[in-house]
C-alpha cells in the first residue's frame, strides 16, 4: 500500500505549515511571494491528481478512499483554490498577514479533499471541521471591516450549529449501525432499510441532511450564505461558493445516496421539494438584488437547487449530471466572484473609501473599463444561465435529461413537473444575469479604463477557458462524472 495517492493532501498540509513558519521568519515586505508558493503547491497537487485521475485505493484502515468520485471532487477543490490563490496575489497584495491567509486556504483545501476521500464518519467530520474552521477565519479576514466580521460570525454560528446537528446525526448513525465506517453503514442500511426497525434512523438521516445542506446552502439551511458571501473578502466568497459548497455535495453523495436508495420514494420527494424550493427561492430573490456578490450568493443557492435534483432520481445519469454541474459551477462561480473582486479593485482605485464596491452601479460600462473582466463575467453569467456551449449547459443538460427520462420511464407526472419548474427557473435566471450584462455593455462607463492586474486576469481567463472548454469538449468530464456516479451508486 503506497501512500503516494495521498500526496496532494500531504503536499498541501506540509506547505501550509511551512508557510506559517515562513511568515514568522520573513519581513512583511517579502510576504508577497507566499502567494506564488501556494499556487505552485496547488499546481503540483493538481498535476498529481490529474495524473492519478483513475487511481483507486483505501488508506488508514479504510478511513480514506481514493476513487473516481474523490478524484473529480479533488479536482474541483484544487482548481477553485488555485484560482482563488492566484486572484489573492492581487487581492491581498502587501497585506502583512498574507502568510496566515495562504496557510488557511491551503488547510481548508486539505479539509475539503479529506471530505472528498472520507470513508469513515470520523474522517468526514474532521475534514468538514478543518475546512469550516479555516474558512470561518478567512471570512473574517478583513478584521477592521465590520461586514467581514459579521459575515464570519454568522457563518461561524450557523456553521457550528450545523456541525452540532451533523455530529448528532452521526452519533445516531453510529448507534444504529454500530460502525462509523461508511461502507459498513451502507451495508447495514441495505439489509435493514430505513424505517424498517425504528424511527431513529430517519431522524439521523435528517440531521445529516441538515449538516450537509448547510454547506450546500440548500433552503432552509442556506440563511447564512447570502450574508457571508456578501460580507467576506471577495476571493474568500469565491472559495466558499465555488469550493466549500461542493463539500456538502460530495459528502451527501458518499453517505446519503446509497443509504437512502432503499426508501427512495419518500426521500426522493423530500429532496425534490427542497430542490424546487431552493432553486425558486434563489432565483426569485436574486432578481431584486443590487449587490452583485449577494446576487451571486442567491444564484449559488439556485444552482445548489439544480444540483440537488441529482438526489431526486439517483440514477447514474442524474448523479453524473450533478457532478458535472458541480464542476461547472465551481468554475463559473469562482470566476464570477473573482471578476467581482476586480470590480472592487477598480472602484477602490477610483476612490479609496468607496463602500459597497459590488453595487450594480459600479458595473456600468465595465465592458469599456475592464474589457477582459467584463467579457469573462459575461461568459460566466451565460454559463450559469445554462446557455451552450459552456460547462453550465453540459451539466444542466445531462441533469435535466436524466430527470426527464426518469419521469418518462416512471410515467411520473410530478417528476416532469419538477423538470419544468427547473427549466423555467433556468430561464428566469437569465433576467438577473442579463441585467448585469446590460450594465456592463449597454450603459456608459462611470470612470476611466483601468489596467486589470495580471493575477486577476490569469485567474479569470483560466476560469473562462475551463468554463468554455468543458462546454466544447465535455467528453472526458462526462466520462469522469459517469465513473464517479457509478462509485456513488456502488456499481
Amino acid at each position, binding site marked *: 500500500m503506497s501512500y503516494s495517492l495521498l500526496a496532494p493532501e500531504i503536499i498541501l498540509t506540509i506547505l501550509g505549515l511551512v508557510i506559517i513558519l515562513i511568515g514568522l521568519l520573513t519581513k512583511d515586505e517579502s510576504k508577497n511571494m507566499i502567494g506564488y508558493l501556494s499556487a505552485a503547491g496547488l499546481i503540483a497537487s493538481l498535476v498529481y491528481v490529474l495524473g492519478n485521475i483513475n487511481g483507486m485505493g483505501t488508506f488508514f484502515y479504510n478511513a480514506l478512499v481514493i476513487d473516481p468520485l474523490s478524484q473529480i471532487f479533488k479536482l474541483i477543490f484544487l482548481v477553485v483554490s488555485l484560482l482563488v490563490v492566484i486572484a489573492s496575489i492581487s487581492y491581498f497584495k502587501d497585506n502583512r498577514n498574507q502568510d496566515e491567509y495562504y496557510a488557511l486556504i491551503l488547510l481548508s483545501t486539505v479539509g475539503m479533499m479529506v471530505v472528498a476521500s472520507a470513508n469513515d*464518519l*470520523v474522517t468526514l*467530520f*474532521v475534514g468538514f*471541521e478543518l475546512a469550516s*474552521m479555516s474558512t*470561518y*477565519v478567512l471570512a*473574517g479576514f478583513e*478584521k*477592521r*471591516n*465590520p*461586514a467581514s*466580521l*459579521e*459575515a*464570519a*460570525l*454568522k457563518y*461561524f*454560528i450557523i456553521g*457550528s*450549529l450545523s*456541525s*452540532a*446537528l451533523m*455530529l*448528532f446525526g*452521526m*452519533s*445516531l448513525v*453510529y*448507534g444504529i449501525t*454500530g*460502525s*462509523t465506517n461508511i461502507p459498513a453503514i451502507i451495508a447495514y442500511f441495505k439489509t435493514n432499510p430505513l424505517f424498517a426497525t425504528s424511527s431513529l434512523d430517519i431522524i439521523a438521516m435528517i440531521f445529516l441532511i441538515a449538516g450537509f445542506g448547510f454547506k450546500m446552502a440548500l433552503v432552509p439551511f442556506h440563511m447564512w450564505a*447570502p*450574508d457571508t458571501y*456578501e*460580507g467576506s473578502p471577495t476571493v474568500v466568497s469565491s472559495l466558499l461558493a465555488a469550493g466549500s459548497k461542493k463539500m456538502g455535495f460530495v459528502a451527501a453523495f458518499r453517505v446519503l445516496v446509497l443509504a437512502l436508495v432503499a426508501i427512495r420514494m419518500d426521500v426522493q420527494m423530500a429532496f425534490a421539494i427542497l430542490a424546487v424550493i431552493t432553486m425558486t427561492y434563489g432565483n426569485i430573490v436574486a432578481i431584486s438584488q443590487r449587490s452583485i456578490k449577494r446576487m451571486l450568493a442567491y444564484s449559488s443557492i439556485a444552482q445548489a437547487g439544480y444540483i440537488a435534483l441529482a438526489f431526486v432520481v439517483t440514477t447514474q445519469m442524474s448523479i453524473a449530471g450533478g457532478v458535472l454541474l458541480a464542476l461547472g459551477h465551481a468554475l463559473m462561480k469562482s470566476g464570477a466572484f473573482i471578476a467581482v473582486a476586480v470590480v472592487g479593485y477598480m472602484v477602490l482605485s477610483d476612490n479609496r473609501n468607496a463602500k459597497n464596491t459590488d453595487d450594480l452601479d459600479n458595473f456600468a460600462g465595465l465592458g469599456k473599463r475592464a474589457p477582459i473582466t467584463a467579457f469573462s463575467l459575461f461568459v460566466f453569467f451565460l454559463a450559469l444561465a445554462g446557455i451552450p456551449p459552456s460547462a453550465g449547459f453540459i451539466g444542466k443538460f445531462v441533469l435535466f435529461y436524466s430527470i426527464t427520462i426518469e419521469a418518462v420511464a416512471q410515467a411520473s407526472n410530478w417528476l416532469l413537473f419538477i423538470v419544468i419548474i427547473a427549466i423555467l427557473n433556468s430561464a428566469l435566471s437569465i433576467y438577473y444575469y442579463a441585467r448585469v450584462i446590460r450594465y456592463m455593455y449597454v450603459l456608459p462607463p462611470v470612470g476611466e479604463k483601468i489596467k486589470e492586474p495580471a493575477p486577476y486576469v490569469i485567474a479569470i481567463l483560466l476560469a473562462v477557458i475551463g468554463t468554455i472548454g468543458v462546454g466544447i469538449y465535455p467528453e472526458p468530464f462526462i466520462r469522469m462524472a459517469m465513473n464517479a456516479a457509478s462509485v456513488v451508486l456502488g456499481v
Partner: protein
Amino acid sequence: MSLYTYLLISAIIFVIGAYGIITQRSGIKILMCIELMLNSANLNLVAFSSFNGNATGQVFAIFSIAIAAAEAAIGFAILVALFRVRDTINLDNINILRW
C-alpha cells in the same frame, strides 16, 4: 440505566442548546449553547459506544471534543474582533448584512 436514559438526557441537552441559540442575544451565550449541542452528541457517541461494545464512538467523541475546543477558540476570536469594531456582541444589532 438503559440506553434510552442517555439518549433522553442527550436529547434534552440538545434541545436546550437549540432553544438557547434561538433565544439568546449575547454571542457568548450562543457559543455556549452550541457547545451544549456538540456535547449532547458526544454523550450519544459515548453511550452508544458503551452499549455497542466497540470503542469507535469514544474515539469519535475525543476527536469531537478537540475540534469543539478549536471551534470555540475561533468563535471567541471572532467575537473579540467584532467587539473591537462594533463595541457590542449583542447579535440583534449585528445585522448590517441583510435582505
